[in-house]
């Protein structure tokens, strides 16, 4: 079995990291390249860059950021934020992204998923779904445009459709849990695991390794975490060792010592 992945996420606007700028131990906590290198060197299995720029200039600088991060790190790079067309996806992959995440644009124009998967490969095509529990009924609905619009559409059904359209992976964020530190929405993960066979990256709500372990036990292939690394107190390496202590078979760097052949 492939090992469960830990994916730190950086929100970038106009070439600068926007959250966690009080990060300890870096010369410039706002520099995406420095942060990316720190996470990669600390054992991150993959890195997610989310472009939260609001302007066209901002989006253009995202491509330069991707290229700079690509030159600096040797782990897979997932890039999302404002991917609205095959050209947007291609531009990011050419700059060095290994995968692109499509959210609102994919929901509004689902043929985009097939276009990207068809032209660039399913392994590049991640569909990001923000899901919120329905207030009037069971289940979850898709939320778009940065959480500003509840669509009423069934999130699990959209996930199954995205798979049918050619998506290679799903990035699922519980809108209710995001930022709360109460843990991932495990029922949502179970429902998605039953509805699709795609690898699931769980996002939204983690405060500690027990939360991550729970998500992985419920079928997530990977956990995305942002806030928990923001102030630099908890390193990726420490997080992975804690996960290993909880029985999760994460990838660990060999501990240095006389027995290790380097």
């Amino acid at each position: 079995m492939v090992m469960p992945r830990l994916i730190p996420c950086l929100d970038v606007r106009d070439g600068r990291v926007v959250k966690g700028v009080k990060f300890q131990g870096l010369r410039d906590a706002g520099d995406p390249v420095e942060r990316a290198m720190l996470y990669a060197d600390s054992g991150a299995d993959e890195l997610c860059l989310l472009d939260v720029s609001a302007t066209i200039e901002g989006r253009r600088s995202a491509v330069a950021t991707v290229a700079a991060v690509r030159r600096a790190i040797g782990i897979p790079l997932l890039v999302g934020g404002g991917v609205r067309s095959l050209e947007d996806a291609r531009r990011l992959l050419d700059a060095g992204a290994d995968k692109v995440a499509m959210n609102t644009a994919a929901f509004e124009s689902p043929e985009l998923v097939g276009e990207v998967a068809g032209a660039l490969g399913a392994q590049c095509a991640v569909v990001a779904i923000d899901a919120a529990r329905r207030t009037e009924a069971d289940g979850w609905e898709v939320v778009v445009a940065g959480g500003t619009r509840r669509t009423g559409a069934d999130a699990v059904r959209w996930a199954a459709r995205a798979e049918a359209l050619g998506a290679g992976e799903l990035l699922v964020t519980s809108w209710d849990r995001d930022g709360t530190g109460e843990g991932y929405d495990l029922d949502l993960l179970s429902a998605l695991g039953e509805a699709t066979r795609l690898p699931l990256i769980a996002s939204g709500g983690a405060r500690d390794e027990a939360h991550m372990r729970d998500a992985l036990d419920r079928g997530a292939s990977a956990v995305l975490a942002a806030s928990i690394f923001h102030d630099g107190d908890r390193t990726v390496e420490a997080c992975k060792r804690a996960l290993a202590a909880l029985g999760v078979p994460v990838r660990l760097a060999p501990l240095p010592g006389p027995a290790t052949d380097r």
Partner: protein
Amino acid sequence: MSVTLIETGLANVASVEAALARLGATALRATGPEDVARADAVVLPGVGAFGAGAAALAERGFAAPLARRIAEGRPTLAICLGLQLLCEASDETHGASGLGVLPVRARRLGAPRLPHFGWSEVTAPSACRVVVGGAAYFAHTYALTELAPLERAGFAVATATEGETFAAAVERGPVVACQFHPELSGAYGAALLGRWLETSRDSADAAHAGEVQRW
């Protein structure tokens, strides 16, 4: 020593170029068959379908010089689809031919979930010098599942298991082909690339010394 990169038009070479640059190796893109024939070291990356990759190698004239330099044991690194293109054929595209330097057919991996996507453990025999044991990043659906013919052809075979055991990498001197992506496999991958570059430099130096002596 500069490294020549073969573009099949299907691979994202940015990751490979970046990984080589971090190790101090300049990567140049091959513009024609002469570049592949003359290069001290060649990298064949690859992502995508077998048929398209094989056609691209043939159209650009890279197939013959690539096969020749591998037969001569000159430094060559093939990655992912690049490994599969060295085979005779692949279940992925019937009727397409690979270079045939690996006497096997790439087959659909018998894993419960495909593609095999993520980090898996590589087990390397002591006969491998460039490839060692450790976790590497894989992203593939097809794989080399017949190992004995590879060993008979003189390759040391490192393995991984996802549903079934398959060749994670093959190695014969400075000719190395990996199913995983060393350029995306963190410190493990960087160390592997570093060892391949070192082996390649030794091999290229010996070749040049030989040429000088001849004159």
